[in-house]
């Protein structure tokens, strides 16, 4: 048997150990699971039928979530365009793009909910901390994607336009932009979808949007109202996903 075989056994033992450790130390009393059944049934029963009287709150909350996602995405696009140039391997030296890429990776590593909580502390409750948190969080991914779009540009058409007598600005407009623009559009739409999904939970920490109502209704045991809001959230996510699939096909 080769070294790889021993490695396989070691990895297996490690995984088994991790699972056992988690099971033993997590206080998993089977009796608690059994007694949870009736309570879950009761919980679901109280969600049905969903209370449609909260339509006004749903519309208000959804509109605010949508606004947070739109403005947060806009903020991320504005931050990402210059950062993408600084993170590009082909436009700037390694001394610039390496540290910039490291900062972007760091930003991606910070969970959105944490940024939102810090922003609520900094600027107070409402949609503003949500917008700032989304813009900051999304920039980590969007600037990286844009930089990859810039680095993926084929050089040959640029030389061809130079040969035809086109100056630097015209080469940017007619050789680089047509290659980069559809990729940027596709990445931005993709990030907007993620922003909308993620901003649904911002209300839980007081950073605005429809999440606030779910939080409020669950805490006050109004499960039928919480159910209505949840259905609205699901409908919204499916709608935006459908829209995005259609849009992205256009920019392939």
């Amino acid at each position: 048997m080769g070294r790889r075989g021993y490695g396989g056994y070691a990895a297996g033992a490690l995984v088994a150990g991790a699972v056992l450790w988690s099971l033993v130390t997590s206080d998993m009393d089977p009796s608690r699971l059994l007694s949870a059944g009736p309570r879950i049934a009761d919980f679901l029963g109280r969600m049905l039928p969903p209370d449609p009287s909260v339509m006004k709150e749903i519309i208000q909350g959804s509109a605010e979530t949508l606004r947070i996602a739109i403005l947060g995405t806009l903020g991320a696009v504005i931050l990402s365009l210059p950062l993408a140039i600084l993170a590009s391997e082909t436009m700037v030296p390694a001394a610039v793009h390496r540290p910039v890429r490291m900062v972007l990776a760091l930003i991606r590593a910070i969970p959105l909910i944490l940024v939102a909580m810090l922003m609520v502390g900094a600027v107070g409750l409402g949609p503003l901390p949500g917008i700032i948190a989304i813009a900051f969080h999304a920039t980590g991914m969007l600037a990286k994607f844009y930089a990859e779009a810039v680095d993926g540009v084929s050089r040959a058409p640029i030389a061809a336009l130079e040969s035809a007598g086109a100056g630097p600005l015209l080469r940017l407009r007619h050789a680089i932009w047509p290659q980069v623009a559809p990729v940027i559009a596709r990445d931005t739409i993709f990030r907007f979808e993620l922003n909308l999904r993620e901003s649904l939970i911002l209300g839980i920490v007081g950073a605005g949007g429809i999440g606030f109502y779910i939080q409020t209704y669950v805490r006050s045991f109004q499960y039928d109202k919480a159910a209505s809001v949840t259905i609205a959230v699901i409908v919204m996510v499916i709608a935006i996903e459908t829209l995005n699939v259609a849009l992205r096909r256009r920019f392939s």
Partner: protein
Amino acid sequence: MIPAVQIDDLAFSHPGDTTPTIDGLSLTIPTGESVAILGPSGAGKTTLLTLLDGRLRRWQGRVSILGLALDPDAPPPLSRRADSGFIFQEFALVERSTVLRNVLNGRLGRMGVLRALLGRPSAHDLSVARAAMTDCGIADLANRRVDSLSGGQRQRVAIARCLAQEPRLILADEPISNLDPARATEILTLLTHAARKRGATTIFTSHQPDLARRFADRIVGLRNGRIVVAAATADLTEDATAALYELNDAARAPQLQVIS
């Protein structure tokens, strides 16, 4: 009459190379001619064409294009670049754009800057572009995206873009490499006809002496950056013809002595 290209004692080495890519080359190409440059890979054919297009720096010697001297230390002014058109071996098209957009890109050096920047070609620009597409047999592909075309169609787009530029000198880098003889004949017919119709001088590089003799008024044989044969096709001696055919063979067996 001013020659289309006048080269005196030209030398060029790629940075870091010990042997020169072009080594003491002198050549005169009369206006309106079609010229084939033959030679094995690495003979300096593409380097010479790129240099004539004004895209190489730090060479020695004197080079005049259409009566105006090229500067070895600075790119030619944009207004002059449009006078020489380059057909790239790998076509160098903007893949996501339409055929018409790509062909119109050849007009960028001929339009006003504002028109070019806004992408609003004049009626004249459009008619020149359409004439170029018709000559290349791709008029019906105008609104197709380039990345949906076959290799042969893309080559025609590349040629049409060059023609739309209304160049007085056409530089074609290996226009018939990797083409079967029928296709190669088709492309060279199209290219030389369109150039003659527009009064442009054409220089193309090739590995194929047969087709070069059929389509070129003048043939230049190149090896190791030096001219081995240079003559009007009509005046080619038997020895010179034999030397042309040996160019590619010699590349495969570098120990053979140069015949001159």
